[in-house]
């Protein structure tokens, strides 16, 4: 086993070597511009882009013409929200989203609010799940877009997308889904799920960084967007700019591998995740799961370790790459807004650790992580005044703290 261990696969994944192999020719001998229509360099680049587009469309059960390449999911989210709102502003001025979306959606929505758009941020239950009835209740005759993520990047909770899609169809409202964490990991069917626009990206599924896609439905209904980037009219006019052919070839290969390996890979990864969860929770008291117990991404595990602070914990296991919802790990010094939206107390939000298992995770790495986590938590609890107080039977909630 090699150190350090990478267990932060929600953040990004390592490029699969097979993906790199598929990309390499497009840097050198096949370097053409896919928009060059009158020579073979252009043709072979175009063929590579078309092939990738077909593979990507197939993974989400869509048509190749419905795939718009972008620089990544953040751009896709921005294009979906801003592009739809601008295009349909005559029809209405209300957008529905949730309080636990990725910052790319939340901040795009906030930017729209500054321009006079009304945004409803729906709450989630304590497992982090949206209630479809809340979506229905929030729709008004001015609602033009619903944007709900497929699965949470922090707690892995998978939302009832199909039910929300059904409601959107029934009410004639467009439905955007940020599926960044789900595509390639769990089955996604854009039509069955009633999705009209969907964001996802290559680097979360063992492809290169810098390339993503926005699925834009062409029929029933035909979705239109105002582009954010003007230029040569690439991507059906929705996203101009010369296509990064090597990245697209890699994205296509990554998708192909996910499609082939998903049935076995998701079972294997979930097995590792369950082993990690059991190994930690069997050995330590006062460890709480954040997120949904079953409706969760296979590789996700988000735990709060009461009485210890997340950043200190990360420091104790620094040869393992993990992430924390602790304030100290964020630029804003605020604990995770996702965990706060679940009703997790600030104290436990500060104590949260996200484990992200992936294709290259091994049982040895999981066992090593279990062992290191137990030691680090015990080390920190030994020096935690909160643990000491809890052991003395003091209810920490009744203590008058001098907040600072």
């Amino acid at each position: 086993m090699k150190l350090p261990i990478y267990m932060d696969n929600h953040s990004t994944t390592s490029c699969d070597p097979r993906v790199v192999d598929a990309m390499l020719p497009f840097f050198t001998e096949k370097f053409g511009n896919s928009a060059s229509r009158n020579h073979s360099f252009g043709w072979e680049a175009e063929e590579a882009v078309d092939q990738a587009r077909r593979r990507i469309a197939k993974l989400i059960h869509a048509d190749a013409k419905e795939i718009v390449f972008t620089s990544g999911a953040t751009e896709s989210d921005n294009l979906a929200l801003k592009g739809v709102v601008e295009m349909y502003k005559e029809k209405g001025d209300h957008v529905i989203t949730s309080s636990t979306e990725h910052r790319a959606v939340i901040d795009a929505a906030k930017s729209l609010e500054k321009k006079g758009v009304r945004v409803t941020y729906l709450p989630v239950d304590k497992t982090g799940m949206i209630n479809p009835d809340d979506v229905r209740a929030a729709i008004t005759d001015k609602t033009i877009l619903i944007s709900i993520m497929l699965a949470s990047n922090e707690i892995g909770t998978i939302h009832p997308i199909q039910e929300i899609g059904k409601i959107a169809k029934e009410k004639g409202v467009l439905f955007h889904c940020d599926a960044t964490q789900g595509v390639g990991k769990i089955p996604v069917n854009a039509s069955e799920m009633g999705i009209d626009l969907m964001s996802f990206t290559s680097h979360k599924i063992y492809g290169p960084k810098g390339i993503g896609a926005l699925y834009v439905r062409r029929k029933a209904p035909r979705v239109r967007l105002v582009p954010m980037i003007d230029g040569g009219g690439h991507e059906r006019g929705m996203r101009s700019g010369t296509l990064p052919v090597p990245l697209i070839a890699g994205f296509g290969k990554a998708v192909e591998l996910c499609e082939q390996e998903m049935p076995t890979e998701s079972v294997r990864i979930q097995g590792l995740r369950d082993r990690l969860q059991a190994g930690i929770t069997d050995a330590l008291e006062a460890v709480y799961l954040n997120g949904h117990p079953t409706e969760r991404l296979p590789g996700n595990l988000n735990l709060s370790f009461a009485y210890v602070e997340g950043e200190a914990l990360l420091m104790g296991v620094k040869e393992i790459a993990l992430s924390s919802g602790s304030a100290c790990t964020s630029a804003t010094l605020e604990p995770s807004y996702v965990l706060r939206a679940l009703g997790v107390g600030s104290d436990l939000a500060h104590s949260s650790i996200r484990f992200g298992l992936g294709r290259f995770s091994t049982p040895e790495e999981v066992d090593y992580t279990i062992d290191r986590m137990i030691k680090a938590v015990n080390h920190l609890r030994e020096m935690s005044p909160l643990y000491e107080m809890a052991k003395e039977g003091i209810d920490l909630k009744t203590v008058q703290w001098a907040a600072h």
Partner: protein
Amino acid sequence: MAYSDKVIDHYNNPRNIGSFKKEDEDVGTGIVGAPECGDVMKLQIKVEQDTIVDAKFKTFGCGSAIASSSLATEWLKGKTVEEAGEIKNTDIVQELNLPPVKIHCSVLAEDAIKAALNDYKKKADAETRTETTTASAGA
């Protein structure tokens, strides 16, 4: 964020972890911070004839908070109560090379020192008063 070697050393080998009996008259206890804010420090001193003979801490917080309080206990030992009151958060920042985003950890450590000293002084004053009262009652 990369930690300084000194912070890492205090984190791995914290000095003076533990607790004294809060009720003891020669012990001063300071508890500052709040769990919701992500850091709580408990710092205790044991005083003999106006000199701090021992100090202990327990901290819930990030590595810099742990290191700040661990360092504080080292510095407190051997100082008089008055000298201890002169320890400044900026001294801690300098010693541990804390980055700007972690300065609040050192502030919290200074607050903890002050709170422990105040607690001790309060006890000592009460003690003096009791003694005076007893003495005059006996006369």
